């Protein structure tokens, strides 16, 4: 199915073939299953208006996304991009980006690791090169002890 479109922003004719397999080009969803090889099952929620109550409720839909490196785990929040052509009978999207990795959420404002409403401070200061720092400290102590042996009692 081919039809011409006039793009008002660039003022050119675009020949668009029905190449996009699905209506939704970008979606965000939560991974619910990774038991398939190189495929992630993603649940996408959209707000749908209840006609009588006039209130919005989440409506779920599952999509299958191609994940070549198998980097998704169950519970990740994931951004999917529509594939130009349908890859398999059900696989229509591919993994574009893991937005929030489960257990390792990184706050986009600060760039630090976060858990709920608290910051997770990683123990980097005390774990950096323990052996190297100890030997250096010992050498420093020796030097200081020999130089100040007459002046002050050496502090260990």
């Amino acid at each position, binding site marked *: 199915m081919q039809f011409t479109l006039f793009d008002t922003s660039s003022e050119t004719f675009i020949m668009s073939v029905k190449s996009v397999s699905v209506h939704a080009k970008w979606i*965000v969803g939560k991974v619910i299953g990774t038991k398939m090889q190189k495929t992630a099952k993603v649940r996408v929620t959209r707000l749908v208006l209840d006609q009588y109550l006039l209130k*919005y409720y989440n409506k779920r839909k599952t999509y299958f996304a191609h994940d070549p490196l198998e980097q998704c785990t169950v519970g990740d929040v994931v951004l999917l991009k529509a594939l130009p052509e349908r890859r398999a009978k059900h696989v229509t999207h591919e993994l574009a980006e893991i937005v929030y990795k489960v257990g390792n959420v990184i706050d986009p404002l600060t760039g630090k690791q*976060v858990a*709920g*409403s608290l910051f997770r401070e990683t123990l980097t200061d005390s774990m950096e090169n323990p052996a190297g720092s100890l030997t250096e400290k010992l050498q420093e102590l020796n030097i200081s002890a020999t130089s100040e042996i007459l002046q002050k009692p050496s502090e260990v």
Partner: protein
Amino acid sequence: MPMKGRYPIRRTLEYLQKGDIVFKNTVKIMTVNYNTHGELSDGARKFVFFNIPQIQYKNPWVQVMMFKNVTPAPFLKFYLDDGDQVLVDAEGKDHKDISQHVKKILGKSEEVLQAEELARMVHSNPANFGPKKYCLRECMCEVEGQVPCPGLIPLPNEMRGKYKSQMKGTEV
């Protein structure tokens, strides 16, 4: 009999149609991260409570997702068609400030909206008769002051072809 719930005005068509923000065509996904407790998230919480239904009503093809208690600071994130992402900080802001800011950066301007409405009006001519989906009226019998539908009220004999042919037959 009053409506149920707190602020049930949010559930009226008039309120939904009064939404300001119509997103540009490139915006595909909107994500709101906020916390359920804490004063800093208060603006974001009110934004979700009052403005999200209006936004979703005006932009039915944008996916709106809410995340609660994921990060300490509240923010909004927009995913555009080219792969661009827009991050809007909402910490400590009032819900009106947030909605005005979003309208300014990603909403269609007044001129664009009016131009679109004009185009729609030009496209649909109210003088046409046709299916309800495309035109206002289907048949002339619906208009006041015109001959009513013969399905409801029988036509006078002068206008009925059957009667006229019968009279012609008997006369001649």
